[in-house]
């Protein structure tokens, strides 16, 4: 996965080479970038796309180097997939097909409107990234954001701020966790101006847990400096990916951008299939 500088370079290159399309909607017009023939991306989406492209190019270049050094047969990157899935009774755990993952962002738990708005915007981008990676749909029920208290007002999960004293930046749950744990928790440290991770990337990582993915760095191939966890009830969706969105930044691998790599894409599609936007639906 690229560092911030290299993804910015990729972003600049893409911006200067891609065709721009202007979409008019009443008095509002939006400029979008066309990629891969028929995908229209706004600035934020293009940034994520640039990170993914950078990750893929870096992996390809590493493969060429390995091959040139005579490192033996190197499997084509596109054929690899990553991610560690959660299992129960020997079967992979995932959300039921067709289930829309609804959420609300509990405004009263945030210490300021600015923080609430940052969480809403971050969730929008992070859910968008996963929706464009595999066959899953999230829905923000913003009408429930102003609910009183901290109880779930009727969504699949809630997003809230909680002061955990910096034990984590954000925390999440797995699909097979008890319903009362279905919360994405955001610590005040998430809003720190000096946060060393991409805040949207942090939410992409947390939503990876929500979809049923464990940490990538718990595999035996990860650097020994990375934190250990129990491997029970997990299934490797295939090979280890040091650049995965689910990998911590440890042992000099991982990334602070926490972008979803092309390898993550293939792994997550093993569980959820292709993104719904890939299809032309016929009635």
């Amino acid at each position, binding site marked *: 996965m690229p560092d911030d500088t290299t993804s910015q370079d990729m972003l600049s290159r893409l911006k200067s080479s891609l065709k721009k399309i202007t979409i008019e909607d009443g008095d509002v017009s939006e400029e979008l970038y066309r990629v891969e023939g028929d995908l229209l991306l706004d600035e934020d989406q293009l940034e994520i796309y640039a990170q993914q492209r950078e990750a893929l190019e870096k992996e390809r270049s590493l493969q060429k180097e390995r091959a040139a050094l005579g490192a033996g047969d190197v499997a084509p990157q596109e054929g690899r997939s990553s991610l560690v899935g959660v299992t129960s009774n020997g079967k992979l755990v995932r959300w039921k097909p067709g289930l829309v993952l609804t959420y609300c962002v509990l405004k009263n738990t945030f210490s300021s409107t600015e923080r609430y708005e940052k969480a809403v915007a971050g969730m929008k981008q992070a859910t968008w990234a996963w929706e464009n990676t595999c066959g899953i749909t999230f829905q923000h029920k913003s009408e429930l954001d102003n609910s009183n208290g*901290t109880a779930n007002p009727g969504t699949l999960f809630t997003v809230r701020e909680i002061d*955990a004293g910096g034990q984590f*930046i954000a925390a*999440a749950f797995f699909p097979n966790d008890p319903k*009362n744990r279905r919360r994405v928790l955001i610590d005040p440290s998430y809003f720190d101006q000096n946060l060393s991770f991409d805040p949207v990337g942090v939410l992409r990582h947390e939503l990876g*847990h929500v979809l049923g993915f464990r940490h990538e760095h718990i595999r035996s191939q990860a650097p020994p400096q990375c934190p*250990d*966890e*129990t491997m029970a009830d997990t299934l490797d969706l295939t090979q280890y990916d040091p650049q995965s969105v689910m990998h*911590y930044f440890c042992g000099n691998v991982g990334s602070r951008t926490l972008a979803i790599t092309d390898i993550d894409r293939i792994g997550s599609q093993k569980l959820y299939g292709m993104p719904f936007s890939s299809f032309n639906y016929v009635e």
Partner: protein
Amino acid sequence: MADESEKTYASNFLDKHPALRETMARSKRLDELEKKVALPKDDESEEQLYIVRGDTVGDKDELYVDALARGSNPETKDALARELFLETDPAMQALIIDELKK
């Protein structure tokens, strides 16, 4: 009592090995760990949850089992997890490595 299929892996694992449950119940180090990673509760009736596996939430059984798995690595930087692992008897240590780290 919860249905077997509704219980977490950690609870099933500890139920299967009562000796470990006993060690867990006696452990003062686990009390220390609990204090360190307890999640703030909105009200007293709420289940006490902990931060486990870095950034997910779990109950006391999951906290303990996760710490044992981490502590089974002699090179772990988590001294408390290592102490928890070393509190268990050698047969249990072998079992932890075999079942939690496979």
